[in-house]
C-alpha cells in the first residue's frame, strides 16, 4: 500500500486502479447491456432522441430467448464443453507423463526432444490448419468433434508438457529418492508422491488447456461446417452475422454466455492456479 498522505493514495492508487478496472470490465458491461437492450434501441443513429449508450430502461430477454430458441446455441455450448474437456484430459495426461520423463529421466536426446516438442508449439495455427485440413479430410473426420479433439492436442500437449516440466523440476529430487528407498517403484512414486505434490501445476495446466480449447477459432471454423456441430466462437460469429447484418442482441448475449464457463473455471481454481505458476511447494 502507498504510505503517506491520503491524497497520494488516491492519486497513485485508487484512481489509476479505477481506470484500470473500468478499462477491463467495460467490454463485459457493454456485452451485458447490449444483450438486454431492445432492438429498437440497438439500431438507431446516435443523434436520435433519448440516446443513452450506457443504460436501457426497457431491458428485454428477447435476445437470449432468440439465442436459445432460434439458434443452436445450446448445442454449441455442449459441443464446446465436450471438445474442450476431452482435449484437456488428453493433453494433461500426455503433458504430465512427458513433462515427468523429460525433467526426471536421463535418456539420450532428452534435451533435444524437449526443445523439439516446444518448437512445434511455435508453428502458428493459421499455417498449420492447411496440412491438418488435408489429414482431416483423408480420415473423414470433417464436421465431427473428433476433428477438433484430435487436432487441439497439437498445441495443447507442447504447452502442458512445458508447463509440467518446469513444475516437476521444482519438486525436490529427494522426495522421489526417499520414496524409492522406501520401496516404491518409479510408477508408484509417481502416482503416490509426485502427482499429488504437482496438483497445483496440473490444475494450472488444465485451466490453461481448457481455455485455449474453448476459445480456439481457426480449426473450429475450418473443420466444422454444419450448424449442429459448431462450437460457440464459430457458431456465434457465423450464424449471428449474416452478410453485413449483425444481430447485435443475440450476438452479445452469445458472447457473454459463452465466456461464463471459463470464468467459472478460473474462479474456482484461482488459488491453485497462482500457486502452480509460482511453484510454491515446499517439502
Amino acid at each position, binding site marked *: 500500500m502507498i504510505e503517506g498522505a491520503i491524497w497520494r493514495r488516491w492519486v497513485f492508487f485508487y484512481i489509476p486502479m479505477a481506470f484500470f478496472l473500468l478499462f477491463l470490465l467495460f467490454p463485459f458491461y457493454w456485452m451485458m447491456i447490449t444483450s438486454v437492450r431492445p432492438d429498437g434501441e440497438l439500431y438507431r443513429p446516435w443523434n436520435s432522441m433519448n440516446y443513452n449508450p450506457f443504460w436501457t430502461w426497457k431491458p428485454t430477454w428477447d435476445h437470449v430467448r432468440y439465442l436459445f430458441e432460434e439458434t443452436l446455441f445450446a448445442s454449441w455450448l455442449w459441443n464446446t464443453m465436450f471438445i474442450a474437456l476431452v482435449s484437456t484430459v488428453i493433453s494433461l495426461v500426455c503433458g504430465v507423463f512427458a513433462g515427468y520423463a523429460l525433467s526426471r529421466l536421463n535418456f539420450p536426446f532428452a534435451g533435444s526432444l524437449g526443445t523439439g516438442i516446444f518448437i512445434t508449439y511455435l508453428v502458428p495455427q493459421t499455417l498449420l490448419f492447411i496440412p491438418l485440413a488435408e489429414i482431416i479430410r483423408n480420415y473423414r473426420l470433417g464436421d465431427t468433434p473428433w476433428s477438433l479433439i484430435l487436432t487441439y492436442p497439437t498445441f495443447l500437449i507442447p504447452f502442458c508438457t512445458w508447463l509440467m516440466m518446469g513444475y516437476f523440476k521444482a519438486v*525436490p529430487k*529427494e*522426495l522421489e*529418492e*526417499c*520414496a*524409492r*528407498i*522406501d*520401496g*516404491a517403484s518409479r510408477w*508408484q512414486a509417481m502416482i*503416490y*508422491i509426485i502427482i*499429488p*505434490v504437482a*496438483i497445483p501445476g496440473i490444475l494450472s495446466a488444465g485451466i490453461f488447456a481448457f481455455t485455449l480449447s474453448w476459445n480456439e477459432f481457426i480449426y473450429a471454423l475450418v473443420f466444422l461446417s454444419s450448424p449442429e456441430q459448431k462450437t460457440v466462437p464459430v457458431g456465434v460469429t457465423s450464424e449471428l452475422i449474416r452478410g453485413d447484418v449483425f444481430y447485435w442482441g443475440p450476438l452479445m448475449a452469445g458472447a457473454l454466455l459463452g465466456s461464463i464457463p471459463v470464468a467459472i473455471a478460473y474462479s474456482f481454481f484461482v488459488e491453485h492456479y497462482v500457486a502452480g505458476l509460482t511453484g510454491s*511447494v*515446499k*517439502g
Partner: protein
Amino acid sequence: MGQVVLKAINKFYDSVHAVKDVNLQIRDKEFVVFVGPSGCGKTTTLRMIAGLEAISSGDISIDGQVVNELAPMDRDIAMVFQNYALYPHMSVYDNMAFGLKMRKFDRHEIGKRVKEAAEILGIGEYLKRKPRQLSGGQRQRVALGRAIVRHPRVFLFDEPLSNLDAKLRVQMRVELKKLHLRLGTTAVYVTHDQVEAMTLGDRVVVMKDGLVQQVGDPLELYNQPANKFVAGFIGSPAMNFATVTMADGEGRLIAKNSGMEIEVPSTHAERLRPHVGQQVTVGIRPEDLHLAGDADPAGLTFNSKVEVVEQLGSEILLDVRVGEETMVAAVDPTTRAKVQDTLRLAVNPARLHFFDARTERAI
C-alpha cells in the same frame, strides 16, 4: 546384521574423479561418520551405499552380499535426508507408514510400528498433522521415524542436522546418540561438522577431495592426526600451524622460527632428526598452550603479543602474534590479558605435532 564393506570404491562424473579408492569395513552396530569439507565426496559415497548413485568401480557389500546392482529399495536400508524430504501432502502417520505400505505390510503391523517409533521420538501427538504444520525439529523427528519403522539393516544419514538452529542441533545430537544406543542399528552418517563427527561417531572417516585422509575413533584423530589436514579439521578452535626450521643445538633438537624456539621432546626427536636443516610444520592446539609459569622450562616457552581477546566464559581465546605467525591460545577464564600485552606462553611437550612441509604427513 548390518555389516557394510566398501572395496576400492571410485566414482567418476565424466572426467571428474569425485571419489577415489575408498576402502572401509563398517562393523555391525557401528556408528561411522564421514566428515570433510564440501565437495570432498562424502555424500557421493553415502549415495553409492544407498544405491542412488551408480558405482564407477569397486564393490559395496552389505552382510557379505554385493549390492552394486541392487535397487535402493532392495538393500534394506533407510535414509534420512538433509531437508527431511517429508511427503508434504501426507500426514505424519502416512509419511511414516508409506514405506511399509509399499512393502505390503498389514495394517496392524504398520500401526504398531508407527506408534512404537512415534513413542521413541516423542511425536505421538503429531501423527495427524501435515509436515507444514510442524517445526524444523519435529519434521526432523518424523524423518527419523520414517526410517526407524522400516527396521533396516543400515541407517544412512545425509547431514540431517544441518538445517536446524544451533541449539536444536546440540539437543538432537544427543538424541541421535541415545537412539543409536537404543536401537543398535549400523549407521553411516555424513556431516561437514567435526563436532558432530566427534560426538556421534564410533569411528570417523575424514575425507578431502575424494580421498580418505584418516579413519579412526574420535580420540585417535584428535591425538594422532595422520596429516595436517586432519589435524586442522578436527578440534575447535583449529590447531595452530607454524613453519619452523629444525636445528641442532648442543645435542638437542630445536624447532625455531622468527617468533619462537621450541626444544623438541625426546619422544619426537628420533623421527625429526633426519629433518635437521629443513623446514617442517609444527602444530599446537590452542588448548595445549597456557601462560608460562615458573614450572615451565624455558625451552618450551615463547613470547607473544595479544591481538584479540575472545571471552567465552568457560575459557578465553587469545589471538596472539608470535613472530610473523598468528596463533590462538585457549587459556583459563581467570587469565588477565589485554590487547597489546606481551605474554609468555608455554606449550605442553607431549602435545606437539610435526608435519612434513611438503607431503603434510605427520612425522
